[in-house]
């Protein structure tokens, strides 16, 4: 297989990891914002407890995506950085506020209640805004509305504000909230578990609704993407994703939480996988493909260092999740 394709696959996998891990951390912030009586405080505790040790490691997946992009596909990085100047800055604003206010709240021990409440609200609001903006940016990338064929002529684009992009933003937010609720229901029991089960069912409904909403926009604004989604390459993946979605919903109903979690993760992976296959070989339709890549020497460097990095990364990640999520993941059952 060509290096361009393998690296594009690695980028897609990193996007999936970010969605499944980092996305849930944003979802945690959403449920922090919408914590409800009578267990408001306890809900927030569970969320903070679940995110605390892992969110920074989860966040690195995004950095990894950016770095791979500018190393292996510098032309795409250039085009995206110019065309999405505004939404990317807003994403950064959200990322900075979310991360900072989360730790600030954790350690605002001497400043009392007001400080903690202020950082709590900031944390929640930033957690809502950021995935929406990321989804909108993804929408702009696949909309076909970014005109980037001539590097000198690229300007800041409004494609991220199109209805299609807005629908993708909404879907991204719903998915984050959904994943978070499903994970959290796995990490506790009793009343709190019921709270998060209810939240998962609500968010799951929104996921279905926004996905359905996306279809007409895809037809009118991005027929190429819809056609791509219906190819023999992408469709089977999407069908598996749809089945996983049904399984996850059903498992939630009958309170089989572990199954629900596995299925929900599979659902998100298939959704992104289907999207990636539908986009293939374009990074920015119709102007930049994965073959507009860095010279072969650079691609070779990335390919050669990838396994070395993974040897370092995967055992460390496994150790992290074992230590903090072990009893919940069933890793410590022996």
């Amino acid at each position, binding site marked *: 297989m060509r290096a361009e394709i393998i690296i594009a696959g690695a980028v897609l996998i990193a996007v999936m990891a970010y969605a499944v891990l980092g996305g849930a951390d944003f979802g945690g912030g959403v449920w922090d914002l919408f914590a409800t009586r009578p267990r408001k405080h306890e809900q927030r505790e569970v969320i903070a407890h679940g995110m605390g*040790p892992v969110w*920074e490691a989860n966040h690195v997946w995004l950095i990894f995506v950016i770095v791979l992009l500018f190393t292996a596909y510098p032309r795409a990085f250039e085009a995206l950085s110019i065309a999405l100047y505004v939404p990317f800055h807003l994403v950064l604003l959200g990322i900075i506020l979310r991360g900072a206010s989360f730790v600030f709240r954790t350690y605002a021990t001497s400043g009392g209640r007001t400080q903690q409440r202020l950082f709590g609200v900031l944390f929640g609001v930033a957690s809502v805004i950021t995935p929406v903006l990321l989804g909108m940016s993804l929408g702009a990338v696949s909309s076909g509305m970014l005109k980037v064929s001539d590097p000198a002529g690229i300007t800041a684009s409004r494609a991220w504000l199109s209805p299609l992009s807005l629908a993708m933003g909404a879907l991204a937010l719903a998915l984050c909230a959904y994943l978070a609720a499903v994970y959290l229901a796995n990490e506790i029991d009793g009343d709190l578990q019921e709270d998060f089960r209810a939240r998962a069912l609500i968010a799951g409904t929104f996921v279905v609704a926004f996905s359905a909403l996306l279809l007409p926009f895809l037809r009118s604004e991005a027929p190429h993407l819809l056609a791509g989604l219906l190819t023999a390459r992408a469709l089977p993946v999407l069908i598996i994703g749809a089945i996983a979605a049904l399984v996850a919903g059903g498992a939630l109903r009958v309170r089989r939480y572990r199954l629900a979690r596995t299925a929900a993760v599979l659902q998100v992976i298939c959704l992104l996988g289907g999207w990636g296959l539908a986009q293939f070989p374009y990074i920015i339709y119709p102007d930049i493909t994965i073959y507009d890549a860095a010279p072969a020497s650079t691609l070779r460097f990335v390919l050669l260092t990838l396994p070395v990095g993974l040897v370092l*990364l995967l055992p460390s990640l496994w150790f992290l999740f074992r230590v903090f999520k072990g009893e919940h993941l069933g890793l410590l059952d022996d």
Partner: protein
Amino acid sequence: MNSVLAARAQMEVSLAFHMVFAALGIGMPVLLIVAEGMWLRTGQLHYRRIAVKWGKATALTFAVGAVSGTALAFELGLLWPRFMAYSGSTIGSAFALEAYAFFVEAIFLGLYIYGWDRLSARVHWLTGFAIALSGLASGVLVVAANAWMQAPVGTPSGDPTAPFRSPAWLHMALHSSLSCYVATSFAVAGVYAVGMLRGRRDAFHKSALTIAFTVATVTAVLQPLSGDISARAMAKYQPLKLAAMEVLLQTGPHAPLTIGGIPDDTGIVHLGLRIPSGLSLLLHHDPAGVVQGLQSFPRAAWPNLIVTHLAFQAMVGFGFAMIGLAALFWWARWKGKHERLALRAAVLASPMGILALEAGWVVTEAGRQPWIIYNIMLTADGVTPVQSVDITFFGFSLLYIMLGVALVVLLRGLAHPRAREYAAGAEHAG
């Protein structure tokens, strides 16, 4: 404001902000290892309390470092898309390796901060080493990208090993890593010196100060030695920057060393102290050694002399001031009678490491201007065509100011908890 100015300003603010936290991210783990190691060795509980407290401070600053670093990674493209399109495939290799170091660092920091009760004492201590090593590695790797921009080799596109072949890499990595330890340890020592001046003279404060100030002294003494290596390499690879830093006009032997003073933009220094043949001696160990002056280069290629010279004076000045204050501290301690003097010296020195570090980066980056890649690409040719850069510059500057203020308030809360909490803690340590 035109785009180039605004983009430069936004890059400067973001990097200057990030660097404080990057330095702490590299320096704090070393202090953590020492404190926790002392606990494991002596079993004295206050060492553990020091490590727990510093761990919390590190968690705070690390998060800010991580998000501001993320901003930088995006900003490379948002502000300098032409540069990244041209050279992303060359400097990207350094950042790609750095990403693995980030993973390791973030993972083990999570284990460290939240793992006190979940890991055995020894494994917990070892996670500190993983953070320290990966933090150091991420700094060393990103500096490779910067070193290549200062002293490029190979081809600007598609040469992934070029950053590691840049002749500036090793000495910059050494000097800038040391500077992170200097900056962190002086800053931390100052916190406890203030506490002790206010009368908190328990084992906790004493040990915290001693650990931090010991690391501070060792690294501060090494720093001029590594700076000397940097300066000599610079004479070879970036003679123009060196001439600007020293405001040396004429090429020739017996080049003088100019200390202090304010240059004008023709290269005349007012009020400076001149040591005849000083620069030749420093660079070549020979008063007749030839040093290239500004006049050997076209005027349009000169960097801003005032900024470059003053920043260099500030870095070196702070560097020697820290060494002097460290000597005073240990002398006063050794005498045993002048404790307040020792503590005041530590307080005075505490911001100097961070200031020297920022000043040093201004020398390096402003001194490289007008080039973004030295002698290859002009900064103005790398900038984004987007028109509204001034808005994002002001917005992000405001954001960073607010974050900085919030963080200082929180760290003060951590360092000086309310009296009640403090008394309980002190009892605990007794």
